[in-house]
């Protein structure tokens, strides 16, 4: 690690002020940032410890939704009784990520800010437009079995690694942030950015802005939801493909479906074309297969990852079948 000043802050304004200094990074759980600092990929001058800020609560909202503090640990959120009962997709997604130790450390805000695990981003011997803008993308012509098939560009094909974010994308979460000009809301779909020509710009936060909490709306049908993750080993591994699904089924017909995919996109991937197929259709295997075809219709594969397109389709069909069977 490069030397840095560790600054502990006790109020939001101090946090935001300190974060505006050049080379500042907030730290909560640190499970991603410290790792990247050890590899000299992140080299902050100031590390701003925000763990004393008052964002560790989970509260139910009047509309039936849930407000989750940015500092809530992944494990506390996953095992929260309301999350288990009303939002199983979120609990399952959290518990499919990392290990129990890491989930005890990692925060919700940090998970939103988690950076890609693309091996060419992690290995500083290779070109990477995220790590070193303009240097090129070694993954494009490298061993890209783990890389994305949706939302890629000629500058970056790195996947977004989070499971939690895939569930939050399907749940239409809203991210609350505070900055020098006050508070604002960012719809989940607008928080993470597509790589385009600027893969190093990964999110929509302004300088100094602090994530304070995440809201998920109340939904009458969110109990009928599921997260399915497919990976190279049974546990403690990033997704090859994953699917977060919520289904509102009445009388055998899908009133509304909320679908997001993981492991395949350069950001947590809301599968709108799949939702269009599902909404109003009969809840059966034929519909699910058509939805899966639609979800991956824009996919583009590279040398080693064509398998992901078929795997993602089957993952989505299985997730929909499982969710539909929940009563």
């Amino acid at each position, binding site marked *: 690690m490069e030397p*840095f000043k560790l600054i*502990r802050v006790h109020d939001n304004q101090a946090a935001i002020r300190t974060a505006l200094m050049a080379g500042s990074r907030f730290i909560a759980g640190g499970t991603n940032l*410290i*790792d990247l600092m050890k590899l000299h990929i992140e080299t902050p001058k100031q590390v701003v410890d925000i*763990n004393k800020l008052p964002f560790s609560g989970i509260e139910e909202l009047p509309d039936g939704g849930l407000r989750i503090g940015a500092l809530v640990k992944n494990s506390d959120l996953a095992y929260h009784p309301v999350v288990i009962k009303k939002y199983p997709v979120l609990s399952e997604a959290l518990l499919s990520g990392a*290990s*129990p130790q890491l989930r005890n*450390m990692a925060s919700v805000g940090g998970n939103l800010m988690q950076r890609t695990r693309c091996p060419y981003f992690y290995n500083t011997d290779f070109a990477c437009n995220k790590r070193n803008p303009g240097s090129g993308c070694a993954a494009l012509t490298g061993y890209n079995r783990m890389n994305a098939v949706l939302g890629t560009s000629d500058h970056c094909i790195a996947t977004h690694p989070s499971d939690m974010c895939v569930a939050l994308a399907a749940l239409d979460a809203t991210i609350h942030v505070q900055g020098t000009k006050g508070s604002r809301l960012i719809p989940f779909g607008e928080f993470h950015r597509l790589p385009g020509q600027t893969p190093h710009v990964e999110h929509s936060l302004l300088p100094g802005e602090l994530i304070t909490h995440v809201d998920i709306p109340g939904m009458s049908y969110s109990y009928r939801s599921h997260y399915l993750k497919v990976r190279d080993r049974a546990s403690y591994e990033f997704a090859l493909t994953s699917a977060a699904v919520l289904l509102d089924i009445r009388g055998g017909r899908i009133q509304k479906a909320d679908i997001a995919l993981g492991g395949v996109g350069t950001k947590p991937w809301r599968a709108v074309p799949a939702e269009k197929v599902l909404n109003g259709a009969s809840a059966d295997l034929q519909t699910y297969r058509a939805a899966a075809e639609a979800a991956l219709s824009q996919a583009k594969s590279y040398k080693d990852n064509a398998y992901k397109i078929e795997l993602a389709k089957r993952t989505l069909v299985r997730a929909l079948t499982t969710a539909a069977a929940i009563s």
Partner: protein
Amino acid sequence: MADNPNHPEENDEPKAGTTRRGFLSQLTFAGAGLTLAPLLGAASTKGSEPVLAAAAAAEITTVSLTINGKKHLLSLDSRMTLLDVLREKLSLPGTKKGCDHGQCGACTVLVDGRRINSCLMLAGMCAGLEVTSIEGLANRDQLHPMQHAFLKHDGFQCGYCTPGQICSAIGLVKEGHAHTDAEIKELMSGNICRCGAYQNIVAAIKEVQNA
């Protein structure tokens, strides 16, 4: 337990005027000297400052925390992880450094009763926290039930991952989410054992759960 060959740390008693750890640390200093000598020599011939001075100066932070029931006020390089502080500053080498990137679980300790990877936790962020490492589990000569169970069920071979496995297993039992063998395996997946003692570790955990 003192003569158990599976516990390398137990072999640290002085033998013929030296210890394994003391010997290793001397080797480390000797190795560093060999590496640095040419650099320092080159610097001194130019009459400039030693080459190593070009590296940015360390930032010092102070922190007060409790480790195995004992309070410590420490002045540290802000880069030090909790793992490094335990091993290098407080001479508590029971907690092991495996991958140093949160992937193997060898560094698992309990912080305020919860299992975490000490390699990914800055020590400077542990102000006011209570840390329990493998050295803090036994009550004098009375081993913690999980330590007993690991011995009884042979939950290790080389022993390197064992301190992390035991701390992780204690965390798992306290969390209370593992009710079947499959759930124990899933919730112990953050601890890798290259000797493959997994079945015996599951047996040890079940014994403690059912006690």
